[in-house]
């Protein structure tokens, strides 16, 4: 099977317009006859569902949380990019496109990224019209700040709660459609299977998390907007319910999984402090606008930070990357933090931390201004650590944060399974091997508000979609599969908790497939994961019954999928024998320790086809062509 990205011909800047014009339209009067399932109510899912309902489609929306407003997008802090060029500092669609392609270390599709940059401005317009209270200047105009990997100020923000405000805007739009009856909402419902009929995605099987009831839903198209899989590492900045299950279940039914090894480690998180720890907390990248990152120049320096004189501090990012300084992209900042800790210059109890110091900024612009910009973040820091970041430099360390990989989609955001569309963090699309800050929110909303509503129409208008019923065999078989898996989990009654096994998997992934990866480490992980999986199916204990609210059972189901998926992630990392973006192979580095790409060998998307648990998956390659942004060694010096 060859992968066709369906990228339209013609000059980059005209592709999207031309493509939209070429898409067949669905007759407005017929739209309500089409049922569309949207799984997920984060920025991608909520914006898509609302926009589709506005167009007249009948939409069914599912999410795990008790309310669509609590999707994980709510936690995004720092901001959203758009090439508005309001500050007049030289931004443009082309520059945003270029920065994003380069930031992703030349492993994303040019046409997709250009389109993303093109619609970025409209996103801000839409959100402002919804009443999203973005930060403003005294003049009443919108304010901007800078994020890593860019030398222009193009990030829009709402204090440290940008994701919350954008999501509440999309949630409002969604609830407005619920009120009109065009959207039916199924909160606390988990998708357990995708149903494929005659090669087309035609429905899903869900479990009510309150009653345990398993049921089928039919549709003409299924949209997955189910977020990222960072929790395969157990400790991450993701919310507890983030999972790979929806994507993985679709993958098992034939959808290709692309670039699973492209995971992002965020440089500025609160360090790990105990074995009982359940998650890691991000300190937004925006803090690097004003915070300076440093460690003591000497190894094993146990002095308190304030007593270390200026000359004995190493502001290592500023030293090594004078033009971007503290605002280098995430992969570069994370790797450098690891490096100084490896040299024994880490700080704090565990020596696995570096300082992020606001002292100079407070002296320069005053505590009030700092409070206004980052107040809630700094308060959060103080609550967690019990230390006052206005007085003592913060301690930070990299943590798993975002996943660039995801289900493979074409230019229309459709997977290789006709009728299955994938949006937001769940797809692999626009960020290549490293996502720049403030671009996930942009991508989620671009997908949901401005891309899918067009492209799904093109599919529906062309496809032949005979009626399907929940009584037919494909649905019944999928329901049985889901129910059997649950029975099997409950029957084990072993001696280990789900959480315990999840931690074990996470630690292995972090050690062998985290910030630095080597052939040896990856082979170790590859051998070890099936053992953990086997132990899970023999020794896990899942309490309670299937027909009730059962959080242990929910977690067990998600972990079961992570235990299959982890193997694919490691396999992908193993065969990608180059360093690029967040994927750092120790065997492939420049003399200065920067990531060394191998464009001849690996300038492609790796899209994997499922062959069965424990069976070697089949690799399909989508070559990447760069006509405009010519690949070069990334330099932030």
């Amino acid at each position, binding site marked *: 099977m060859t992968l066709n990205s369906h990228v339209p011909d013609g000059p980059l800047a005209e592709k999207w317009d031309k493509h939209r014009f070429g898409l067949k339209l669905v007759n407005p009067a017929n739209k309500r006859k089409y049922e569309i399932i949207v799984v997920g109510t984060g920025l991608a899912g909520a914006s898509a569902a*609302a*926009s589709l309902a*506005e167009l007249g489609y009948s939409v069914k929306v599912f999410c795990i*949380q*008790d309310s*669509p*407003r*609590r999707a*994980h997008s*709510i*936690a995004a802090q720092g901001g959203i990019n758009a090439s*508005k060029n309001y500050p007049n500092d030289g931004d443009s669609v082309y520059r945003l496109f270029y920065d994003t392609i380069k930031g992703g270390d030349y492993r994303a599709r040019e046409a997709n990224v250009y389109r993303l940059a093109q619609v970025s401005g*409209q996103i*801000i*317009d*839409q959100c*402002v*019209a*919804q*009443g999203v*209270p973005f*930060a*403003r*200047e005294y003049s*009443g105009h919108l304010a901007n700040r800078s994020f890593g990997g860019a030398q222009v100020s193009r990030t829009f923000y*709402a*204090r440290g*709660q940008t994701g*919350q*405000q954008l999501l509440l805007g999309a*949630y*409002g*739009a969604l609830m*407005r459609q*619920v*009120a009109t009856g065009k959207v039916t*909402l199924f*909160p606390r419902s988990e998708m357990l299977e995708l149903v494929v009929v005659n090669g087309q995605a035609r429905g899903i099987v869900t479990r009510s998390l309150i009653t345990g009831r398993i049921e089928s839903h039919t549709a003409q198209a299924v949209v997955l907007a189910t977020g990222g899989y960072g929790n395969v590492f157990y400790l991450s900045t993701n*919310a*507890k*319910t983030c999972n790979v299950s929806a994507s993985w279940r679709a993958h098992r039914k034939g959808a290709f999984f692309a670039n699973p090894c492209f995971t992002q480690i965020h440089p500025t998180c609160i360090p790990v402090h*105990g074995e*009982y*720890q*359940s*998650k890691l907390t991000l300190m937004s990248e925006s803090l690097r606008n004003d915070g300076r990152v440093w460690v003591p120049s000497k190894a094993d320096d146990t002095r308190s930070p304030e007593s270390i004189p200026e000359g004995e501090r190493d502001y290592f990012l500023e030293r090594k990357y004078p033009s971007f300084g503290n605002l280098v992209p995430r992969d570069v900042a994370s790797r450098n933090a690891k490096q100084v800790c490896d040299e024994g210059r880490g700080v704090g109890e565990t020596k696995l931390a570096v300082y992020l110091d606001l002292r100079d900024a407070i002296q320069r612009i005053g505590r009030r201004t700092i409070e206004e910009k980052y107040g809630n973040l700094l308060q*959060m820091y103080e*609550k*967690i650590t*019990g230390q006052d970041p206005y007085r003592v430099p913060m301690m930070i360390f990299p943590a798993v944060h975002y996943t660039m990989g995801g289900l493979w989609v074409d230019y229309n955001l459709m997977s290789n399974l006709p009728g299955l569309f994938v949006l937001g963090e769940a797809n692999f699309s626009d960020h290549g091997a490293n996502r720049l800050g403030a671009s996930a929110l942009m991508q989620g909303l671009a997908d949901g*508000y*401005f891309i899918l509503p067009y492209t799904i129409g093109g599919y529906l208008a062309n496809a032949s979609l005979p009626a399907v019923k929940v009584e037919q065999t494909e649905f019944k078989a999928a329901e049985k599969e889901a129910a059997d898996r649950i029975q099997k989990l409950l029957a084990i009654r072993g*001696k280990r*908790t789900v*959480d315990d096994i999840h931690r074990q998997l996470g630690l292995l992934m972090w050690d062998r497939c985290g910030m630095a990866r080597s052939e040896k480490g990856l082979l170790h992980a590859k051998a070890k994961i099936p053992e953990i999986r086997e132990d899970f199916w023999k020794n896990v*204990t899942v*309490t309670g019954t299937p027909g*009730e*609210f059962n*959080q242990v059972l929910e977690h067990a189901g998600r972990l079961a999928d992570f235990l299959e998926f982890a193997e694919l992630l490691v396999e992908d990392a193993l065969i990608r024998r180059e360093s690029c973006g967040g994927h750092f192979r120790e065997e492939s580095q420049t003399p200065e320790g920067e990531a060394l790409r191998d464009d001849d060998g690996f300038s492609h998307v790796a899209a994997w086809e499922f062959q069965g648990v424990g069976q070697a998956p089949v690799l399909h390659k989508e070559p990447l062509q760069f006509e405009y942004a010519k690949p070069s060694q990334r330099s932030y010096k």
Partner: protein
Amino acid sequence: MKAGMKFTLKVWRQKGSDAKGKLETYELRDISPDASFLEMLDVLNKQLILTGREPVAFDSDCREGICGTCCLVLNGQAHGPDEGTATCQLHMRRFKDGDTIHVEPWRAKAFPVVKDLVVDRSAFDRIIAAGGYVSVNTGSAPDANSILVPKQDSDLAMDAAACIGCGACVAACKNASAMLFVGAKVSQMALLPQGEPECSRRVLAMVQAMDKEGFGNCTNESECEAACPKEISVSNIARLNREFLRASLCAVEGKAGGEGA
């Protein structure tokens, strides 16, 4: 390593929404003062699971105070003793070694218990569906900077918009009133030019939906503000009352003028 702490927990256990619930007592030792309250409950659940007992059901997701999922009443206080703090951001160092802590769910007619410490807050979604938005379709927005908003108004709107919809305001109120939740959304929109055209319709519809869900009346106790993890001010309730009054009057005039509201 800091020394571990000991606690006695009295936790509300209830099988399902129709079942009768009661407090169960659990002893915990060796809890790190740096553990969060929810991590302490994770430790308890691990013990329960490994001894063949049902773990305590409680809701949480982001565990950094922004999703509004966690919702525990600790020693009678919604989200526990710290001001401006959701349960998930509360750490055990805040308690004394040997403390007894009562752990209960939100209690309100409009928030029925699902199981143990988990409640159903879908009433809030229905209130928002009634009008908690600007009715703008995708694609019809003008350039963002064509709508100027004075910084003071935008900041005030943001203060109100910071609501995480957790429902602590309802849980803390002796009347189980949702006025702070509704006031926050009505205020956000009323303070912004984008929200202005639908102001009257919005406030009337949201208040009507709120009453229908069975939330109580506001008697100005301000317990809601004290419990709110985002420190949303009761001045939003005053604004809600003003907006409601104005809209009600306009509605009467509107009807007289044949316009409707």
